[in-house]
C-alpha cells in the first residue's frame, strides 16, 4: 500500500460524504456557498472517476489491482472495495450525469426545500459505494444510503404528488430492503462469508443442502435488485416516483435503476458464472426483462404526460438490459453496457428537458406553486423570483433537444441510441451472433421487443413533440436559463461523442465483459490483495490475551 494513489479508490465515496457533512454546517440561506461546495465535490468526483477509469484500463498488467482493503483487513474478513473496469465505468457515468443534474438544480430547484445539496451528495456517495463495494452486506448499506437519499430527493419540493409517489416508493423499497436482508443473511448462513469474491470461491464446493439454501437466498436477494431495477411486475412504483420527482432529481435517478442492473450483472457473472449453480436465475431475467420491455412499451404508448413517458422509458431501458443479460451472451452483454451508458444519459437529459418544455405549458409552475405555499414558515417566503433572460432561440433549442432525445430513445441514427441497439442486435442476430447454435426463439422475441419498443418511443415522442411544440406552444416561450439548457445540451453532446467514438468505447465494453467473464481474475485480485505491512502498534494486551483466553 505504498502507492498513495491507491487511496483514490475510496475517494468517490469520501468526497461526497465530506461535502455532504460540510454542507450541514451552513445555513440554508447560504445557498451560493452550498452550491459551490456541491459543485466542487462533483467536479472532484469527475476527476477521480476519470482517474480510476484510466487506472482500470491499465489493469493489473499496469500495476493496478483495483482492490482496497478497508481497515487494512484482508479479504474476506474486512470489507473490500474493488475498482475494476465495470465499476470505473459506472463511476464515470454517475459523475458525468451528476454534474448536469446539479447544475440544472442551481437554477431554482436547490432552493425549493431544505438540504438539497447534502442529500444530493449523499446520494452520489451511495451510488459510488454500491458500484465499488465487493461485500454483500456493505452493498446493502450503500443501497440504503442511496435509497434514503433518494427518498429525500424524490420528495424534495414536497407537494401532494411527490409525497404520494414517495410513500409508495418508500414502502416498496422497504420491502425490497427486507428481502435484501433476508437474502444476504441466508447467503451468510449457507456459505459463511459476505465477501463476493470469497463467496464465488466457496460456492464451488458446497454441499447440496447448503447450495439449496444459497440459491434460495440468492433468489430473495434477486427480488431486491429486481425491484430496484424495475422488472415487471415489481416496477409499478417507478413511473409514479420518477415522474413526480423534480427535474434534476429525476435526472440523477436515471442511474438508480441501473444500480440494480449493475449488481445483477456483477453477481450473476461472478457468483453464478461457472460451477454447478451456473446460469442461476437467467431465465427469470430473460422473461422478466421481456415482460418489462413490453410493459414499458405499453406505458410509453399510453402516457399522456411527458414525465410518465420518460419513466416508462426507464422501464424499457431496464427491461432491455435485463432481458439481454438474461441471454448470458458475452458479445451481447458488451452491447448492453453501451446501451446502459447511452440510455442513462438519454433519460437523464430527458427528465431535465421535460421540465423546461412543460414550463411553457405552466404545468411545472403549478407544482412548484403548490409547494411554495407559505404555510406558516416565514423563512420560505423569501423565495426569489426567477431571474435571468430568456435565451434566444429557446424553442429551437428545446425542440432540437427533444428531437435528439426522441431519436435516442427510439434507437434511430445518428445518435448513440442506434449504436447501442445495433451493438446488441448484432450480437444476437447479426455478424457477431454465433452461427453454430442458430438463433433461438427468445432471441427473436427480444429482437422483436427491441424494435417494438423503439417504434413505440418514436410514436409517442412524435405525438408528444407535435403536441408540445407545434400544437400548443404557439406564442408562449418558456423562460429557460442557460444553466438549465446547458446540462441537457451537454448530455446530448455526450451521446454524440459516444456515437463518434463508438469504436473505442465498444472496445472498452468488450474488455470489461471479457474480464467479467473470467471471475477468477476478480477473485484472485481480491483474495490476494496484501495488507499494508503489519499494524504499526500491536496492542499491548495482545500477548496477555493469548495467554488468557
Amino acid at each position, binding site marked *: 500500500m505504498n502507492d498513495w494513489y491507491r487511496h483514490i479508490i475510496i475517494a468517490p465515496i469520501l468526497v461526497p460524504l465530506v461535502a455532504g457533512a460540510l454542507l450541514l454546517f451552513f445555513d440554508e440561506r447560504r445557498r451560493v456557498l452550498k452550491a459551490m461546495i456541491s459543485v466542487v465535490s462533483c467536479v472532484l468526483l469527475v476527476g477521480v472517476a476519470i482517474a480510476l477509469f484510466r487506472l482500470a484500463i491499465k489493469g493489473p498488467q499496469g500495476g493496478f489491482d483495483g482492490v482496497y482493503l478497508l481497515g487494512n483487513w484482508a479479504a474476506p474478513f474486512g470489507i473490500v472495495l474493488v475498482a475494476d473496469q465495470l465499476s470505473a465505468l459506472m463511476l464515470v457515468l454517475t459523475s458525468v450525469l451528476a454534474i448536469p443534474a446539479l447544475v440544472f438544480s442551481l437554477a431554482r430547484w436547490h432552493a425549493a426545500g431544505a438540504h438539497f445539496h447534502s442529500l444530493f451528495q449523499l446520494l452520489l456517495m451511495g451510488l459510488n459505494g454500491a458500484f465499488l463495494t465487493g461485500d454483500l*452486506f456493505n452493498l446493502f*448499506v450503500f443501497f*440504503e444510503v442511496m435509497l*434514503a437519499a433518494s*427518498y429525500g430527493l424524490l*420528495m424534495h419540493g*414536497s*407537494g*401532494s404528488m411527490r*409525497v*404520494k409517489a*414517495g*410513500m*409508495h416508493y*418508500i*414502502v416498496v423499497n*422497504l*420491502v425490497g*430492503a*427486507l428481502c435484501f*436482508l*433476508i437474502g*444476504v*443473511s*441466508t447467503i*451468510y*448462513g449457507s456459505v459463511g462469508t*459476505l465477501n463476493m469474491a470469497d463467496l464465488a470461491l466457496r460456492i464451488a464446493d458446497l454441499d447440496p443442502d447448503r447450495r439449496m439454501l444459497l440459491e434460495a437466498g440468492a433468489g430473495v436477494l434477486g427480488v431486491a435488485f429486481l425491484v430496484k431495477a424495475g422488472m415487471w411486475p415489481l416496477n409499478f412504483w417507478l413511473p409514479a416516483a420518477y415522474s413526480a420527482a423534480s427535474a434534476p432529481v429525476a435526472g440523477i435517478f436515471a442511474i438508480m435503476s441501473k444500480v440494480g442492473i449493475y449488481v445483477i450483472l456483477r453477481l450473476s457473472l461472478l457468483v453464478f458464472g461457472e460451477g454447478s449453480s451456473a446460469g442461476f436465475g437467467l431465465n427469470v431475467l430473460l422473461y422478466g426483462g421481456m415482460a418489462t420491455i413490453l410493459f414499458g412499451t405499453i406505458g410509453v404508448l399510453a402516457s399522456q404526460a411527458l414525465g410518465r413517458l420518460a419513466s416508462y422509458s426507464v422501464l424499457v431501458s431496464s427491461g432491455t438490459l435485463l432481458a439481454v443479460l438474461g441471454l448470458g451472451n458475452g458479445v451481447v452483454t458488451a452491447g448492453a453496457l453501451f446501451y446502459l451508458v447511452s440510455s442513462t444519459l438519454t433519460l437523464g437529459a430527458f427528465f431535465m428537458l421535460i421540465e423546461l418544455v412543460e414550463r411553457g405549458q405552466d404545468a411545472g409552475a403549478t407544482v412548484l406553486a403548490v409547494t411554495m405555499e407559505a404555510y406558516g414558515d416565514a423563512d420560505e417566503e423569501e423565495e426569489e423570483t426567477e431571474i435571468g433572460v430568456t435565451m434566444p432561440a429557446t424553442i429551437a433549442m428545446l425542440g432540437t433537444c427533444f428531437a435528439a432525445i426522441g431519436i435516442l430513445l427510439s434507437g434511430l441514427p445518428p445518435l448513440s441510441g442506434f449504436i447501442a441497439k445495433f451493438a446488441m442486435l448484432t450480437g444476437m442476430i447479426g455478424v457477431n451472433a454465433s452461427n453454430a447454435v442458430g438463433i433461438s426463439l427468445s432471441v427473436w422475441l427480444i429482437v422483436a421487443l427491441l424494435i417494438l419498443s423503439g417504434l413505440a418511443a418514436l410514436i409517442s415522442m412524435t405525438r408528444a413533440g407535435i403536441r408540445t411544440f407545434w400544437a400548443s406552444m404557439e406564442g408562449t416561450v418558456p423562460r429557460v436559463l442557460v444553466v438549465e439548457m446547458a446540462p441537457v445540451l451537454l448530455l446530448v453532446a455526450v451521446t454524440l461523442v459516444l456515437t463518434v467514438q463508438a469504436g473505442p468505447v465498444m472496445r472498452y465494453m468488450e474488455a470489461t465483459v471479457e474480464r467479467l467473464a473470467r471471475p477468477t481474475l476478480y477473485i484472485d485480485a481480491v483474495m490476494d490483495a496484501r495488507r499494508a505491512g503489519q499494524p504499526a502498534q500491536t496492542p499491548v494486551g495482545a500477548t496477555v*490475551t493469548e495467554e*488468557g*483466553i
Partner: protein
Amino acid sequence: MELVLALAIGIMTSSGVWLLLRPRTYQVIIGLSLLSYAVNLFIFSVGGVKSNAAPLLENGVKTADLADPVPQALVLTAIVIGFATTALFLVVLLAARGLTGTDHVDGREQPK
C-alpha cells in the same frame, strides 16, 4: 429453541405481511415494524442459536463456543437502518395525510 424461534419469526412475518397489505398507512407502518422484527430475528438466527454464549472475550472461554458475532453485527446495522426508515416512513405518511386529507395508502379513499 430453533423451533420456537422459527415459529416466532413465522408468526411475526405473517402478521407483518397481513398489515403490510392493508389500506391504511398506520397499518402499514405497524406491519413494517413487525416485519423488521421478524427479519432481524431471522438474520440473527442464521448464526445459529446459542444460549449464554455472548461473543464477549473473557479469560478462560473458548472462542469456538461463543455465538457467531457476525449476524449480530449485521442485525445491529439492520436495526439502525430499520429505525431510520420507520421514522422516515412515519413522516412521509404524515405528510401524505396532510396533503391528501386521507390516511389511505393511495392518497384517496376507495380507489376504483
